[in-house]
């Protein structure tokens, strides 16, 4: 499957709905590969199920993908969002699900998207996560991965960079953001009850957000 859905590489100016579908396949693979790792991270801070929830959610996503061949980007992303909120639930369903739903609204009807669209979609995704989870940057959640990624891609657009370069920057910022959670004290979610004992552990949600952003950007890195 991996090979088939690798999509374009090198400097690109447009991304097709086919590329987006390929990106989603890569996300599914990446989540599955990291299932055990994500559970371990969650065992230190929460209830140890994060990898399991993510894996089940993205298996449900994968099941939807064949029926989405040829659909526009908005339809694809909304379907992904619906699969995420319909199947497993957990904390990830509403957070990632809302992000994909809102991002999908911005790409409604489009067979091709440019960097403008992508930035719009990133912004919408972050807004959805904030609206749903009411967390702030620094609270040790997936927002600490998502927010710097969004800032980076916005800047890249302002600087007039290519899609590839913008995604490269976003992925780099996401990675730094993910790592920044190691030193943070969790302020929301299950982990928040551990207070200072959360210092030294990387947040599982922040990690899966990075895994997803990286998998999406892979061919462009």
């Amino acid at each position, binding site marked *: 499957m991996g090979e088939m859905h690798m999509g374009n590489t090198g400097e690109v100016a447009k991304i097709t709905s086919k590329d987006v579908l390929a990106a989603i396949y890569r996300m599914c693979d990446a989540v599955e590969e990291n299932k055990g790792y994500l559970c371990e991270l969650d*065992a230190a801070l929460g209830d*140890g199920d994060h990898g399991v929830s993510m894996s089940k959610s993205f298996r449900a996503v994968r099941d939807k993908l064949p029926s989405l061949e040829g659909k526009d980007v908005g339809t694809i992303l909304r379907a992904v969002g619906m699969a995420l909120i319909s199947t*497993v639930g*957990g*904390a990830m*369903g509403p957070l990632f699900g809302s992000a994909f739903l809102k991002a999908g609204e911005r790409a409604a009807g489009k067979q091709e998207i440019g960097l403008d669209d992508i930035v719009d979609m990133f912004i919408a995704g972050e807004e959805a996560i904030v609206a749903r989870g009411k967390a702030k940057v620094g609270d040790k959640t997936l927002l600490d991965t998502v927010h710097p990624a969004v800032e980076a891609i916005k800047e890249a657009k302002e600087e007039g960079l290519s899609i590839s370069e913008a995604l490269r920057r976003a992925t780099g910022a996401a990675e730094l953001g993910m790592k920044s959670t190691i030193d943070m004290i969790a302020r929301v979610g*299950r982990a928040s009850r551990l207070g200072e004992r959360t210092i030294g552990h990387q947040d599982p949600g922040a990690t899966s957000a990075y895994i997803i952003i990286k998998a999406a950007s892979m061919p462009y890195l």
Partner: protein
Amino acid sequence: MKKFINDPDAVVDEMVDGFLYAHGDRIRRLAEARTLVRADAPVKGKVGIVTGGGSGHKPSFIGYIGKGMLDAVAVGEIFTSPPPGAVYEAIKATDGGKGVLLLLGNYAGDVMNFDMAAELARGDGIEVEQSIATDDVGSGFKDDKSKRRGVVGEFLIWKMTGAMAERGESLSEVKRIADKVNQNTRTMGVAISPCTVPAAGKPTFTLADDEMEVGVGHHGEPGLRREKLKPVDEIVDMLCAEVISDLPFKAGDEVVTLINGLGATPQLELYIANRRLFKNVTDKGIRVYRALVGEFFTALEMAGFSITLCRLDDELKELLDAEAYTPYFTQAGR
């Protein structure tokens, strides 16, 4: 991982099948989602009581579906909040014209998924309210108790809120009871061995042979601290001190006490703990109106227990003693 299962990813679906073979005369599954409801739902003229959450807590939640307690439960994966759709279907299936009250524990996943469901149902014109349980002293937050986890105190909320709904009271009145029980309930637990989520395959934590986790969550979340295992009387003294001082419960108060086994701890040990709990409470001049002992809200095969105190007044006593007919809690009036 030594468990009586087939496919680790299918445990919840298979459990639901087996549950319905046993209780299908009074409980049915909705076609639209993994949601179980009272066979006679919606009950006309009664507020619908809907709850749900991750699985692995048997007899919670589905064991308490029935007259006098819950109308519907949205069934999540092990320790994982159910999706909004399952809650939304629960709301639609139990609205008897007086609205629906959502009862949930204070977990980010549950809060978000129930919120989404409530939004969907309100869009359909159904009146929906929520009450969020936060009884776990072991989750810390002395300064902002609204951030605490909800644990087995939820059972008491279901019991009394369910009885209030059964009387035909309004949604706001029924919600008032849920909030009131929560405000008057405090729990704290300890664990001496972990549990394993089947799909994860590994224990959620490890403890040395002489250690216990104090303030553990009912998904194996770390508690307030680790200590050396002590005789159970000393453990109960410690838990009582924390629980009693937190509300605080005072001389002259009347309470229902509850000792909840987390899974693998024999009832024998729970009753030994109850002996000491009774002493602690009555020594403080607090009256024990009723003492409940058993497994009400487990964490798979975790070994451990919690103690709960809930302050009662005449209104709550009546609701606590009201009839209930569910697979795991039946009370034919007292």
